[in-house]
């Protein structure tokens, strides 16, 4: 795999896996409006993933399409960060996970929209507009839950502590990515840190939540080493396509 293919797949897998996670809420959200909201957010992510997979297929040039990437790779082939594959947990955990993700991807796509790779820039140019309201939605909930009842505060704080160790991976760049950053194709994730910090700080302050201490960070998703949760997710997501290859409706 070329560094560009790895890079594009990493972005696509992030979006697809989180999109799938959010879609698990369909029909189960705490209220109708939120059910619709989560499905909408999931659709955005899956749409972004499709655009990225289509490009990955062209970069690879081996005839693989969106479905081949989404349904016919095993756990080790996925390049998503560990944060997005973490189980939904309760509603607070889903919203905290989403804010940690969206607060990064929004400024990230804004920077990627200036990529020397025209296709990546085009995809990012669309995604950045969508991620803006992802940040807003998750941020509003973070504040409402944190600054809400004792129970909602407790749950939001617990989710934040639980998920914090997966945020380190957002800012990792391997040797392949470093070369792409050098070439002006990829975005240096370290440069996104200030924007991410600012968003998180502001939301936490309003939510009366404390930022967890740094500590040890989980890693490995970009190299295909995942938590046990991804295998279960893939089993559910891929079963139909694998049992009935090429199935459509």
């Amino acid at each position, binding site marked *: 795999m070329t560094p560009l293919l790895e890079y594009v797949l990493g972005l696509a897998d992030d979006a697809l896996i989180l999109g799938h996670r959010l879609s698990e809420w369909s029909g189960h959200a705490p209220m109708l409006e939120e059910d619709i909201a989560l499905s*909408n957010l999931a*659709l955005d992510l899956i749409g*972004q993933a499709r655009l990225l997979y289509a490009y990955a297929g062209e970069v690879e040039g081996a005839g693989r399409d969106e479905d081949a990437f989404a349904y016919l790779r095993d756990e080790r082939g996925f390049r998503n960060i560990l944060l997005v594959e973490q189980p939904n947990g309760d509603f607070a955990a889903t919203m905290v996970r989403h804010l940690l993700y969206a607060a990064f991807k929004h400024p990230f796509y*804004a920077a990627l929209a200036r990529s020397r790779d025209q296709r990546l820039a085009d995809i990012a140019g669309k995604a950045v507009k969508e991620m803006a309201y992802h*940040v807003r939605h998750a941020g509003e909930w973070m504040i409402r839950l944190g600054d809400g009842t004792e129970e909602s505060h407790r749950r939001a704080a617990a989710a934040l502590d639980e998920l914090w160790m997966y945020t380190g991976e957002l800012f990792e760049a391997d040797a392949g990515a470093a070369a792409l950053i050098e070439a002006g194709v990829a975005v240096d994730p370290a440069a996104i840190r200030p*924007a991410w910090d600012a*968003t998180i700080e502001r939301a936490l302050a309003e939510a009366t939540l404390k930022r967890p201490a740094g500590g040890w960070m989980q890693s490995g998703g970009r190299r295909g080493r995942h938590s046990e949760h991804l295998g279960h997710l893939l089993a559910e997501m891929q079963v139909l396509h694998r049992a009935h290859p090429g199935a459509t409706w």
Partner: protein
Amino acid sequence: MRVQRHAMANERARELGNNRTAAERRLWWKLRRLKEAGIKFRQHAPIDRFIVDFVCLSKRLVVEVDGGTHSTDEGIARDRRREQHLRGKGFRILRVWNSEVRENIDGVMDTISDALGAQPPPRPRKDVARPWRGGRVQRRKAGHSERTAEGGALGPPPPASPRKGEGRHLRRGWVHHRDSMLALARRVAAAVVDPEIPVLTLEDLGVLRGVERRDGRIVVRLTPTYSGCPATLAIRQAVELALAGAGIAGAEVETVLSPPWSSNDISEEGRRKLKAFGIAPPNRACGSGVRRASDERGLTPFHEERVACPRCGSAATARVSEFGSTACKALWRCRACGEPFDYFKCL
């Protein structure tokens, strides 16, 4: 406004009926069959002191088949006077050449259906027919009310006003034929309706980025609204189907991402239609593609937007949810009239 039938014109009409050219017979044979679709044409019909080749009174459309004589200076002047009079009566005039009828009758019929505002009869294709059926029903309804409104006095001219140049010869030789094919493709693609909001055409929505000819094929360039909008595929299929229905074979639909679609791309006409449909049109302040400073910095929690109620116009409205029945809409409520409504979001 009554259409008068002059006695002399009537007589001349009968005479002409026995002297039809081969092209007229051929076209008449086709036009008669539109009756099944509720569109009635008359041949050699007298309108005041003129006799037109074909006319559909309910749609106020005149079709004239021209031979060589109309190319002379005198002929052109006569045609102009005649057209002025007919236009004054609210008719649109479509001119086709004898040779076009002879060589490209299907193209002529497509142009006529287009001018009638009626889509060509749908080709049955189960898998894609459903998503945009709503749009068709809408159109038929409009056509129906137009017909009933006519009664004795003739109704208002059809909403599709004649486009510039439509009264002239549409095709002349191969080059013109190619150009008009492109123009037809553009019109057909632009008129396809959004499957989720069937009052908006693709042109109104601002997703049609262009129609061009590439290596002999028609290429329609579309941009998606949201990355994951499920209507994207339905729109693509609807465009392909509409083009095939208009006789444009092998057309291609291409997705364009850049510049990204913005709610500012919705036309004035589109905004008006949205409002009439009960959907508040998007605010113009955002969605320009240039991020505001607050967005670059990060969070904009509980951001305020003012949206007027599309029903009563009151500004006393409140957002119920930023997400609605489709990716592009939010759910709002009017405090004045108490009605819930959709707001077409800024993007």
